[in-house]
């Protein structure tokens, strides 16, 4: 935004109206303030209860619910709680409950993403005793959930091979914030000519630190790596002492992200 007189970006000039009578009131408040304060409270609540909260994002049909089902093969289902977000229906709640996972359904009706207020309302009604993980399956959408805090400790983006290998380029913002990218439906990769090297290169250009794990519901063992990853992240989150024989290098970014120093 340039000042019309001299082309400078002086915001005082932009704000003031040249009639000599105007006053400029500084506000400097985030529009997301109310949401972010609530998200922060949710984070504290989760830490208090030792529950690791994960925001699971991805397009409609990318495989978010399948990832949660897959995890329940390697993490005790009774230790997982899910908040499921969809515009309408309880299709995924019914599905997850069949897998023995306690699920709360949020129907947004027209909302294109979940927000902290919705999560807070859900938490008031949920029973979370003995839960170690809260997985929040966000509304299927690669655009709107990006950057909206809901009290999560981690973001997973689920991206299926059938959506094409250009999704990171087209929707970079959600990938920017990912702590883990899951390539799903991997058994179909060859069939759809999925350009894996190109996809991985694009991810690296947007978010150099996010690991990528391939999964397929045709190979249930493929979810084991995801389970190990989130268990490890949970340990960091709780500040639990753990061994250093894991693959993730302990560089500045890892320490920054996990809030610890070795």
């Amino acid at each position: 935004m340039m000042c019309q007189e001299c082309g400078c970006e002086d915001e005082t000039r932009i704000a003031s109206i040249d009639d000599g009578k105007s006053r400029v009131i500084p506000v400097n408040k985030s529009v997301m303030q109310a949401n972010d304060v609530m998200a922060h409270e949710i984070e504290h609540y989760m830490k208090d209860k030792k529950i690791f909260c994960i925001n699971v994002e991805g397009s409609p049909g990318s495989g978010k619910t399948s990832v949660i089902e897959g995890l329940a093969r390697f993490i005790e289902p009774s230790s997982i709680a899910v908040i499921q977000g969809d515009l309408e229906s309880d299709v995924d709640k019914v599905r997850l409950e069949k897998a023995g996972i306690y699920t709360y359904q949020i129907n947004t009706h027209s909302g294109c993403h979940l927000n902290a207020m919705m999560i807070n309302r859900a938490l008031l009604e949920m029973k979370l005793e003995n839960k170690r993980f809260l997985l929040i399956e966000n509304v299927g959408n690669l655009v709107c959930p990006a950057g909206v805090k809901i009290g999560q400790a981690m973001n997973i983006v689920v991206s299926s091979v059938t959506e094409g290998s250009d999704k990171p380029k087209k929707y970079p913002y959600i990938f920017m914030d990912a702590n883990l990218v899951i390539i799903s439906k991997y058994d179909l990769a060859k069939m759809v000519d999925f350009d894996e090297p190109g996809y991985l290169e694009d991810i690296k250009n947007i978010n150099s630190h996010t690991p990528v794990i391939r999964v397929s519901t045709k190979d249930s063992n493929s979810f084991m790596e995801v389970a190990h990853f989130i268990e490890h992240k949970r340990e960091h989150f709780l500040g639990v002492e753990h061994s250093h024989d894991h693959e993730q290098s302990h560089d500045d970014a890892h320490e920054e992200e996990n809030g610890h120093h070795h």
Partner: protein
Amino acid sequence: MHELSITNTIVKMIEEECLQNKVKNPKRIIIELGRFTTYSGDSIKMFYEMLKRESEMLKGSELIIKEIHGMVECRNCKKTSRIDDPIMIFCMHCNSNDVKIISGKELNIKSITE
């Protein structure tokens, strides 16, 4: 409809700020919008024009959207770079991709001019 909800929040916040600061005739409100957010400035302005008609206080006001550049801080050379293309996030000085995003995700009400 993504921007309708957020613009509604903006309207409520502006009204509250006006009440608190005894602003009777707000003319210009500056909104800072980061390059890496998923909100369209044009859509926010459009919805604002629609919503302000329902408010006595805000009828004569306009929103000005100021874009905030995407900036990263390099963990390798410690310098900052401006990022215009969100699909290529690199340090402009040493080419490292080991960078931290330090601006570009804002959506702020910066100021109100009466």
